C-alpha cells in the first residue's frame, strides 16, 4: 500500500504550458458566473470526448471528458449538454469550431481537447470556447504527466474552466483526508484515509487497531496532523503523506492532546491539551518542540484554527457557560467573543480567503453547518440535520465539506459538501462510512 501511494505521488508531474494559439489575451465576454449571487440557473456547456491521436488514447480521451463534466456539473453552477444532442462533433482539435452548431443546442461554453499517449506519458491539450461570443475564452493549455495521473489532469482542465468562467480559484485538483468508519456505533472501527476530492483513489494511511480522529492537512498538503489512541491515550501525530510515516508530536506524561491544526507557516501547531480535567490551548513548534500556553482558564478551550495570515486564532470555549466562538491573537491574550445567536457554537474553521468562519451550531436538538463573518455578523446556516459537524473549506473558500451522522442504532457517518450560499448539498462518495474531512490545498 505504501509503495502504491509513493509511486502515485512521485509519478504525477504536471506541467502547464500555453498551447500556441492566436488570441494572446483572455476575453471575458458575457460568459461569466458570479458565485456570490447564488446562481439559480446553471450554465449549459458541452465537453465532447477529447480527441485521441491514436487508438491507445481513445479510452482516456473519453474518461477525461467524463471527469471534467463530473467536476463542473458537481458544482451546481454548470449543466452538461449530453453528447447525443450534439450537432457537430470535435474530431480535429485544430479545426475551427462551428459556433452555430453549439449555439443551436444552447451550449454557452464548449470545452474541446486532444490527448496523446506516448509510453507512460500523457499529454492533454484543451481550449475553452465562449460560444455566444464566437471566441476562445483565454489561451489553450497543455498538461503533461504520467498516464496513471490522468484524473489529476482532468481536474486541472476543469479547474481552468471553472476559474475562467467564475473568476474564482478552482478546487478540483485537491485531496481530502478523512476517517474511514466501519462497524456499528458501539464497535466502530476508524482508520485514516486520503482520497481525491471526488472520492477517487482512496488510500488508507493507518489500520484500525487504534482509534484515530480528525486529520488536518499542512498548508502545502505534504503532512497530516491527527489524533490517535495508539498508546491508549489521545496524542497528536504528524504523518508524512508521501512516505506514510508518522511520529508522535508531543506527549507529556499524564496529559491528553487533541484538536491539532497547522499554522499557515507549516511549522507551528495549535492544539488542545487536557490536564487535571481542564482543556486549554497551546502552540508547539515542530522543530524545537517548544510548547507555549495560549489560554489558562478552568473552562474548555478547544477546536482552534488559525487565520490565513497567521495573526489570529479562532476557537471554541464554554467560558460563558455554553460553547461559543472566540478570536484571540495567535500568541494568546484577550479573546473576543464572535458568536451571539441562539444555541451552541463549535468547531470554527477560518476560510482560506480570510473572510468567513465556518462552524457547527447546535440548537434545539438539531445540528447545523454555518458561516459567519469574522466579526460574527451575517450568520448563515447552510445545513440542518440530526448531526452535522466538522466543516472544512475547499481551497477556494467557496465550498464546505463536513460530517453528517444519521440517527439511531444503525446510525452511520458520511461526508457531504455544500456551497457557501447553502446550495448544492451533495454526498461525497467514500467506500465505507466517513467522518472528519480535511480538504487539502490545490495540488502543485
Amino acid at each position, binding site marked *: 500500500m505504501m509503495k502504491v501511494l509513493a509511486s502515485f505521488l512521485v509519478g504525477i508531474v504536471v506541467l502547464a504550458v500555453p498551447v500556441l494559439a492566436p488570441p494572446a489575451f483572455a476575453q471575458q465576454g458575457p460568459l461569466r458566473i458570479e458565485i456570490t449571487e447564488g446562481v439559480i440557473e446553471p450554465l449549459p456547456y458541452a465537453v465532447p470526448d477529447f480527441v485521441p491521436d491514436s487508438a491507445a488514447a481513445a479510452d482516456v480521451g473519453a474518461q477525461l471528458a467524463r471527469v471534467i463534466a463530473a467536476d463542473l456539473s458537481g458544482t451546481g453552477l454548470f449543466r452538461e449538454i449530453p453528447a447525443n444532442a450534439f450537432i457537430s462533433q470535435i474530431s480535429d482539435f485544430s479545426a475551427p469550431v462551428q459556433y452555430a452548431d453549439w449555439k443551436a443546442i444552447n451550449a454557452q461554453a464548449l470545452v474541446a481537447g486532444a490527448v496523446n499517449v506516448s509510453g507512460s506519458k500523457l499529454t492533454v491539450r484543451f481550449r475553452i470556447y465562449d460560444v455566444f461570443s464566437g471566441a476562445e475564452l483565454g489561451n489553450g493549455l497543455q498538461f503533461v504527466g504520467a498516464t496513471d495521473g490522468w484524473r489529476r489532469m482532468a481536474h486541472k482542465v476543469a479547474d481552468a474552466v471553472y476559474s475562467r468562467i467564475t473568476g474564482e480559484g478552482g478546487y478540483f485538483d485537491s485531496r481530502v483526508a478523512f476517517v474511514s468508519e466501519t462497524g456499528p456505533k458501539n464497535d466502530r472501527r476508524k482508520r485514516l484515509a486520503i482520497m481525491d476530492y471526488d472520492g477517487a483513489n482512496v488510500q488508507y494511511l493507518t489500520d484500525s487497531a487504534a482509534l484515530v480522529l480528525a486529520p488536518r492537512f499542512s498548508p502545502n498538503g505534504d503532512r497530516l496532523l491527527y489524533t490517535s489512541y495508539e498508546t491508549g491515550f489521545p496524542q497528536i501525530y504528524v504523518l508524512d503523506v508521501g512516505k506514510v510515516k508518522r511520529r508522535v508530536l508531543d506527549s507529556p506524561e499524564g496529559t491528553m492532546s*487533541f484538536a491539532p491544526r497547522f499554522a499557515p507557516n507549516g511549522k507551528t501547531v495549535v492544539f488542545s491539551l487536557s490536564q487535571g480535567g481542564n482543556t486549554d490551548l497551546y502552540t508547539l513548534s515542530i522543530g524545537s518542540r517548544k510548547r507555549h500556553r495560549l489560554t489558562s482558564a478552568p473552562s474548555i478551550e478547544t477546536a482552534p484554527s488559525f487565520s490565513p495570515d497567521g495573526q489570529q486564532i479562532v476557537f471554541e470555549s464554554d467560558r460563558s457557560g455554553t460553547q461559543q466562538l472566540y478570536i484571540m491573537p495567535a500568541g494568546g491574550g484577550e479573546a473576543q467573543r464572535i458568536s451571539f445567536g441562539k444555541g451552541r457554537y463549535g468547531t470554527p474553521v477560518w476560510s482560506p480567503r480570510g473572510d468567513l468562519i465556518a462552524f457547527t451550531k447546535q440548537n434545539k436538538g438539531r445540528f447545523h453547518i454555518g458561516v459567519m463573518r469574522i466579526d460574527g455578523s451575517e450568520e448563515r446556516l447552510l445545513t440542518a440535520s440530526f448531526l452535522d459537524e466538522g466543516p472544512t473549506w475547499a481551497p477556494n473558500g467557496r465550498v464546505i465539506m463536513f460530517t453528517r451522522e444519521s440517527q*439511531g442504532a444503525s*446510525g452511520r457517518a458520511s461526508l457531504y459538501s455544500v456551497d457557501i450560499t447553502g446550495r448544492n448539498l451533495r454526498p461525497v462518495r467514500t467506500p465505507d462510512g466517513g467522518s472528519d474531512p480535511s480538504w487539502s490545498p490545490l495540488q502543485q
Partner: protein
Amino acid sequence: MSILGKVLTLCAVLAVSACTNATGYDDTNATNLNSGGIGEPGSASDPTSVAYFQQNVGDRILFAVDQSTLSDEGRTVLQGQADWLSTNTDYTAVIEGHADEQGTREYNLALGARRANAAREFLVSRGVAGSRLKVVSFGKERPIEICSDENCYAKNRRAVTILTGGLTG
C-alpha cells in the same frame, strides 16, 4: 417507559449498592454471588477480582447532560471504589470519561476529560494514591448504548473505572 422502568434501567448500570433501598431493587443477585463465600479466584465471588469490582462495587458513574458534577449516587459508588481500592492495593486504574453523541467531537473529548477527572479527584480525596489513577477521555467515540434517545444517552454519559494489575491481571 414507566418511571419505575427508567429507575430500574438506571440501577442496572449503577452499582448495586447505590440502588438497594431507594427503589425496592433487591440485591438477590449480589447475595447469590457471595453466598458461597470466597469462590473461584477471578470470578465475581472472589472479592478481590475485577469481576467483583465491576458487579458488586460498581465500575461506573453517570452524569447529567453536559455536566461533570458528581451525583449523590455517583459519590456512593465512588466511595465504594475508594474503599475497594484501599483494600486491594495491587490494582491501579484508568478512569475513562465518556459523553453522549449530542455534541461536537472535540468538545466531547474535553467534557469526557472533566468527567474522568471528577471521579479521579473524588477517589484521591478518599485516600487513593493519585499515582494509581490515570484518566483518559473517549468523548463520544465509545458509546455502550446505540439508540439516539435519552435512555441510551444517559448510560453513555459515564466515567468508568478500568482496573489494571492485581493478581488476576
